[in-house]
């Protein structure tokens, strides 16, 4: 298809590079540097979507971030990317985009029937229509709304693109590279400040790209090119295009999303798609410019009605005509610039100016060029369904209430200008309360809340001279505050056409007998009548009106609609806009992709994966891994076709019968050192620690102040003032913080230091009746006999030339030892244990067997110490000292913790000795009792006892001690099981603890 609307001698696209892309399956051509919008307009395509509520035809309204209509869905590399603004997305070879919110096609949309049913879609229709009966919600209303609404469809596939995060610090962040951004960046950079200049568009220069001005004897474009080139060459400046600063957060933290390869055909392997910048700036200059306001008239949403500044930018930047018979509808001088641009490109526009007799340089110029102008004229309504074909225009009375001389004229586009709205979003996000400026009929920032200043047209300065002067001054002033340098650059002279005041008129009255829809919010289909209705129904606060009508709540956040909405409310209420106030701006300024927010922290990267030094050995030996916190631990070592159940049973049995070895590197380890270490441990743990001799370990339980068990583990006295504490894998970090809290804040008088040594030691638990025989071979020079190294003893030894530490502690309930070596020797140690252990039938065992072993021994772990249990509940009350005070002790005497039928841990065995009890089952007396069945407690952990070859579980139940011997029921509504069980002691195997002491 030919580009009928492409101009030959104007624009900044690269005409040497033709690019093909498809829109709704049809192939089009554009040039490098085109956006989807400019390329489609060049091809004469103006119908790109359907509106949200009424499914009315939608075209292009703007040329940048403010675009409310042209939201498309991009397909690339078999991925879907919804919510793409056609005015921002640049085309690349092979790009595929399609319309959203229309079915079956953009040209014929069944939902457009809503347009004819619009009496049923008034303000608040969601609240009214879909309320009754409630049973209709799930089956009828919700599917209907879901099908009818929404802009595109997110991909459900894993996003293979790469997104990065970056942290950056600077003296000065400048948001926008228009005249004020460039000038202030230049002044500040020359004064030695570290500057970041961010531009959301691909090209720098902002309004300078499209305005007919002169700065320092250069055109605006030449000047901006010169400044940006110099800034880029400076080492203290970072200049970023395609980068939107979208959020202003606390303490001058701003977040920017950089579109790195969104505009490239194929992502290079390591090139990210987008990068999110967290920027901590000492000072911020907000130079985000302003957005043209629409004028409101009948059918003002018809494709072909667009902002006059957008029409101008399509011509000057992209070399594209938005129409060949344009109508310019304006209440200020900006419309004339567009008209003159049309004229220069050989197209004759007609200007309708709402003002009576304005005069200014630019109006004179337009007249001299022979452009036809009608003063005191308005567009009453656009005509044409899928594209503007003509317009009803009329003369408007001086009081702007009455229309006369209504006539229909042919046109193919209507370029509207209702003056300018400063983009104060970032200032508002910073906490800056804005104030209404009567002169420009818009809000501007009031008093800086954080270290921010708003400059240029974002601050309501609409002449270039004012803007440039202010920006140079601010750039210097702010940089001087930071660098204390005094290098002032000279301010160039500015030549621009003088303009005159805008007309306060913005909404065309309806002619008698007509009921045209006059839209305020183009993305959410909010019309004048909706606001009127909301006010009639009693909504007063602008925040309520917003939510009820959804004005300004679409993805464009009302960039083009908010002020007209406020104007309307204040007109109806006979108030002025500042009395009505405005709604709060919240980040993000423009939609940000979830991918960019998440960055690299997806899947396995959401947290770093930790592996023990023996990990490779486990892998080579068919270990099946399980996540244990951030660690990967072998769950079992698969032999042949074994299932988890079979393998863990084999491994556990081998520990009970021969000897097994388990990687326990992941256990938390903390060195506790200092002359007061014993006293400190005595306060941290519930049991007594003052008399533990050097070379001995002790099991300890620590509580939180509320009496709940925080963690357990063994701590060994390595030397007089040195203890080696172990924690559970999961609680290691919390325990360290807990200890630091008490040492630094509560008992700073104690001379103790703590440090994590988890990573320093690799650990292997050797457990089973053969473990001592194995140890004797591993450490031939060390006495590991029951006398030489008794239960809870500790020794340093030599493992084939490697220094090792042996702790005689047991989690499995068997005769067991834990050997630690420095991490780098972990694999050496492990291989030696396996090698030497062969003759003792050693087998490695994973966490599943480890659980089995500890459960049938009645040793508690995380599933019992679940943040709800006190020592008594876990049968650890024997470890609670009555003599001394410790963290959390006072809480143990609270009434709920001392009542006689307090929960206690018990063992549970199914009567049939075959049915496994699902973890989480309730223990109840009567399975047929009326619901809710009063439960006695729950099953915390289940295993298959290898000792007795039947299922065994641990449970924490009310009055557990007195329940032993009773026949009760385990109920699992989740698994739909009711199992008759007998309550037994939690110490199912070796209740006297003979084996560990053997």
């Amino acid at each position, binding site marked *: 298809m030919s580009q009928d609307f492409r101009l030959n001698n104007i624009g900044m696209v690269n005409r040497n590079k033709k690019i093909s892309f498809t829109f709704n399956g049809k192939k089009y051509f554009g040039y490098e540097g085109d956006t989807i919008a400019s390329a489609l307009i060049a091809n004469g395509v103006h119908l790109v979507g359907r509106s949200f509520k009424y499914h009315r035809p939608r075209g292009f309204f703007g040329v940048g971030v403010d675009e409310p209509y042209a939201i498309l869905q991009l397909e690339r590399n078999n991925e879907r990317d919804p919510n793409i603004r056609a005015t921002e997305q640049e085309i690349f070879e092979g790009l595929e985009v399609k319309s959203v919110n229309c079915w079956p096609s953009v040209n014929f949309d069944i939902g457009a029937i809503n347009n004819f049913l619009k009496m049923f879609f008034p303000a608040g229709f969601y609240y009214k229509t879909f309320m009754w009966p409630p049973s209709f919600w799930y089956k009828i209303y919700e599917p209907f709304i879901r099908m009818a609404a929404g802009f595109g469809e997110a991909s459900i596939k894993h996003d293979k693109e790469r997104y990065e995060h970056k942290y950056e610090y600077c003296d000065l962040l400048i948001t926008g590279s228009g005249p004020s951004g460039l000038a202030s960046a230049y002044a500040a950079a020359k004064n030695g400040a570290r500057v970041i200049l961010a531009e959301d568009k691909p090209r720098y220069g902002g309004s300078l790209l499209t305005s007919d001005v002169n700065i320092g004897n250069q055109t605006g474009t030449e000047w901006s090119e010169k400044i940006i080139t110099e800034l880029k060459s400076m080492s203290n400046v970072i200049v970023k295009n395609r980068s939107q600063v979208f959020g202003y957060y606390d*303490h001058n933290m701003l977040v920017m999303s950089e579109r790195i390869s969104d505009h490239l055909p194929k992502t290079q392997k390591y090139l990210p798609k987008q990068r999110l910048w967290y920027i901590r700036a000492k000072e911020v200059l907000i130079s985000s410019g302003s957005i043209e306001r629409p004028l409101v008239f009948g059918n003002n949403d018809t494709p072909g009605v667009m902002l006059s500044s957008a029409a101008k930018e399509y011509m000057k930047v992209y070399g594209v005509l938005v129409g060949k018979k344009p109508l310019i509808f304006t209440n200020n001088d900006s419309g004339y610039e567009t008209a003159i641009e049309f004229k220069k490109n050989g197209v004759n526009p007609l200007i309708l100016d709402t003002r009576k007799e304005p005069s200014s340089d630019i109006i004179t110029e337009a007249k001299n060029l022979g452009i036809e102008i009608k003063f005191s004229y308005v567009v009453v309504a656009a005509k044409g369904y899928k594209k503007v074909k003509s317009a009803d225009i009329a003369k408007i009375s001086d009081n702007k209430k009455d229309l006369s001389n209504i006539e229909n004229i042919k046109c193919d586009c209507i370029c509207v200008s209702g003056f300018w709205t400063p983009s104060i979003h970032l200032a508002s996000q910073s906490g800056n309360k804005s104030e209404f400026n009567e002169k420009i009929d818009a809000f501007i920032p009031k008093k800086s809340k954080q270290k921010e200043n708003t400059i240029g047209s974002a601050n309501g300065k609409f002449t270039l001279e004012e803007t440039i002067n202010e920006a140079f001054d601010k750039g210097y002033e702010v940089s001087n505050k930071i660098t204390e340098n005094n290098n002032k650059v000279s301010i160039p002279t500015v030549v621009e056409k003088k303009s005159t005041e805008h007309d306060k008129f913005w909404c065309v009255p309806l002619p008698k007998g007509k009921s045209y829809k006059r839209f305020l919010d183009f993305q959410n289909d909010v019309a004048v009548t909706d606001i009127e209705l909301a006010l009639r129904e009693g909504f007063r606060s602008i925040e309520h009106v917003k939510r009820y009508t959804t004005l300004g709540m679409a993805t464009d956040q009302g960039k083009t609609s908010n002020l007209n909405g406020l104007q309307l409310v204040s007109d109806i209420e006979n108030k002025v806009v500042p009395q009505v106030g405005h709604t709060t701006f919240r980040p993000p300024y423009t939609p940000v992709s979830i991918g960019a927010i998440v960055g690299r922290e997806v899947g396995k990267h959401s947290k770093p994966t930790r592996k023990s030094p023996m990990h490779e050995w486990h892998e080579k030996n068919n270990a099946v891994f399980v996540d244990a916190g951030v660690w990967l631990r072998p769950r079992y070592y698969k032999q042949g076709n074994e299932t988890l159940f079979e393998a863990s049973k084999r491994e556990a049995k081998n520990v009970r019968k021969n000897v097994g070895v388990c990687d326990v590197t992941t256990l938390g380890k903390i060195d506790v050192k200092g002359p007061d270490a014993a006293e400190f441990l005595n306060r941290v743990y519930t049991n007594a620690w003052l008399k533990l001799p050097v070379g001995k370990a002790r099991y300890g339980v620590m509580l939180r102040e509320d009496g709940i068990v925080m963690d357990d583990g063994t701590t060994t006295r390595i030397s007089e003032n040195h203890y080696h504490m172990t924690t559970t894998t999961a609680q290691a970090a919390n325990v360290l913080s807990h200890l630091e809290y008490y040492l630094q804040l*509560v008992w700073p008088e104690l001379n103790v230091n703590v440090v994590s040594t988890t990573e320093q030691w690799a650990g292997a638990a050797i457990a089973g009746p053969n473990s001592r025989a194995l140890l004797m071979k591993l450490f031939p020079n060390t006495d590991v006999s029951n006398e030489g190294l008794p239960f809870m003893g500790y020794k340093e030894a030599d493992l084939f030339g490697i220094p090792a530490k042996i702790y005689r502690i047991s989690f499995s309930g068997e005769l067991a030892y834990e050997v630690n070596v420095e991490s780098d020797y972990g694999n050496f140690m492990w291989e030696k244990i396996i090698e030497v252990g062969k003759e003792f039938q050693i087998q490695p065992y994973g966490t599943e067997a480890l659980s089995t072993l500890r459960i049938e021994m009645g040793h508690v772990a995380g599933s019992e110490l679940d943040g709800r249990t006190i020592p008594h509940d876990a049968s650890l009350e024997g470890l609670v000292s009555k003599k001394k*005070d410790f963290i959390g002790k006072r809480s143990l005497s609270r009434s709920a913790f001392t009542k006689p039928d307090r929960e206690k841990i018990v063992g549970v065995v199914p009567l049939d000795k075959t049915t496994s009890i699902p973890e989480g089952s309730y223990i109840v007396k009567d399975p047929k009792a009326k619901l809710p069945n009063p439960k006695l407690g729950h099953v915390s952990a289940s295993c298959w006892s290898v000792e007795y070859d039947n299922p065994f579980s641990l449970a924490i139940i009310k009055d557990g001690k007195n329940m032993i011997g009773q026949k009760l029921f385990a109920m699992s509504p989740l698994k739909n099981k009711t199992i008759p069980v007998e309550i037994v002691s939690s110490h199912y195997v070796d209740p006297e603890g003979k084996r560990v002491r053997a």
Partner: protein
Amino acid sequence: MLYIFCPHCGLRSQNEFAYGGDATVKRPELNKEISDKDWDNFVYLRKSPRGKHLELWHHISGCRQWIKVERDTSTHEIFKTYKADELTE
């Protein structure tokens, strides 16, 4: 994201810290009688003031020191930070 001055390390971003609650709460002394009510106040009850609040932060991904921060809970303004053993005003 807050920018917190750690008296040991300097200005650091909030994501290096963990919040620790009201810094004015004193743990009752060990081995001293205390009523249920006073103990409950210590364990469970905290004020949630609007305005100035002296609170604990743990520089968990930095020097691992607990520090005291005087912060306005409504504006997030940080007035002053103190080392754990420093006397507050």
